[in-house]
């Protein structure tokens, strides 16, 4: 598949990345070579292979439904990582619904 600037723009917008013209050139070439490799893998007959959804062969890793509230100190440490805060709220740019 040929990757043009249009596909790179689309992927960049979905990932909220701002790319320069040079970067777009560079990434379209790299993405194209990655997809070419996938095409190569597609030549293999995988009709008898189960689709992989997880690399480890384990299932049902569960925990009991027991609740525990974080300490005030831990909450404070989490909030300290907020880009901006207002009291105990995370503060963000105005979102209009």
């Amino acid at each position: 598949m040929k990757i043009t600037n249009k596909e790179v723009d689309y992927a960049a917008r979905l990932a909220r990345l701002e790319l320069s013209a040079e970067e777009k050139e560079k990434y379209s070439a790299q993405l194209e070579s990655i997809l070419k490799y996938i095409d190569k893998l597609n030549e293999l007959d995988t009709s008898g292979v189960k689709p992989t959804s997880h690399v480890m062969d384990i299932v049902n890793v569960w925990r009991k439904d027991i609740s525990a509230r974080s300490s005030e100190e831990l909450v404070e440490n989490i909030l300290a990582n907020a880009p901006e805060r207002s009291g105990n709220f995370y503060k963000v740019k105005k979102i209009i619904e």
Partner: protein
Amino acid sequence: MDFETVIGLEVHAQLKTDSKIFCSCPTEFGKGENTNICPVCTGQPGVLPVLNEKAVEFIAKTGLALNCRVNTRSIFARKQYFYPDLPKNYQISQYELPVCESGFVDIKIDKETKRIRVHRIHLEEDAGKLLHAIGARELDHSLVDYNRTGVPLMEIVSEADMRSPEEAYQYLSALKNILEYLGVSDCDMEEGKFRCDANISLRPYGQKEFGTKAELKNMNTLKGVREALEHEVERQAEILSAGGKIIQETRLWDAGLGETRSMRVKEEAHDYRYFPEPDLVPIELDEKYVSAVKAGLPELPEARSNRFAAELGLSEYDASVLTSEKPLADYFEAALPEKDAAKLTANWVISELLGRLNASGTNINTSPVGPENLRGLLKLIQNGTISGKIAKTVFDDMFNTGKNAGTIVEEKGLTQISDEAALAKLCGEAIAETPKAVEEYRSGKERALGSLVGVVMKKTQGKANPGLVNKILKEKLS
């Protein structure tokens, strides 16, 4: 032109677990913003989500109650989008291989049973809450509270099988009732624990393809869903009749104005780029697990209604009214003094109690007359202490004061008079005082006996045993 309405519903029900779906934070609210948060649900780097086993049990229960297939294998997926209520920039949800698929709910429409198919049920985590104003003051920024982030939800997606707003209402009521019977969700719509989005489109009768749909959001009550759909049917019919086209969009219901309005967001194609969640391993539910869950299913509304009809001899109507809400059915069973009193109890619960509750704007959960209290009153009627008529005034007192029936009857001296000698004396007086009625009765007018009974009742402030008075009067006049 007449159009056929096509409706499909997506319901998000909050699961009634103590802890969140992938971490141990409590799900209960009310402790202040951002207190129920931890590194996992706020998406700090390097953390590992671990699935809550109760959430699995609850969705399997729901699937079985909704006649679904519980998949042997299911997996989680990342749904990716940017929005500040989602700290990881993806929501852990399910895409391919949900836990449950292909079920149905039967509803009653004009006394006919109609089957509404359930497409799938999957698990996902809830997002946080955004605040745009504090009270009436509009903010120039938005505030985020992540307490709700990671609370377990199950999304129940129906097929587009409903053909009227009423069918959608009946489906939602039945679904809510089943979830309440199962005890897997509180289903409180106003608290957002049971949310419904509706897809609705119209098409000319006979057309196979669906018309262009609108998605309706922001309905906070079951009736609100029905009203929003009714309004949308009219709006779309008007556009189509005028030769216009429906725009595929999301519309918000405004309950105050009674109309839907477009969200007017830039319609960029959603591209969620789902992929298998690498942090969570697959769920495998074998036959043993599923049959254990099945064995633990409680009696569901339909079975309970059938039992009320078969074992207690209630009419189909009474049985279905009483089981239409779990708390009501529980109340009825707790108030029932004995099997033989089923019809009496059903009448009292359906007409007297529900009537009073509706009139006073309360509901069965906050009834001032509890089931034990009503049972006390019913026993007094059964053993002849008070007449059915007096019981109604006693019930009014109970409702207003919260006192129990025995106390009120004693305090007000309302005990029924069944002393034959005393009643015989009063009947004699009545006959002497009302010669006209006596003459009419003797000339063959059976009805005239009623006025004589009335006289005795008046003399006893309604406390005389009416059956006994009837009997004595007839004897005296024969």
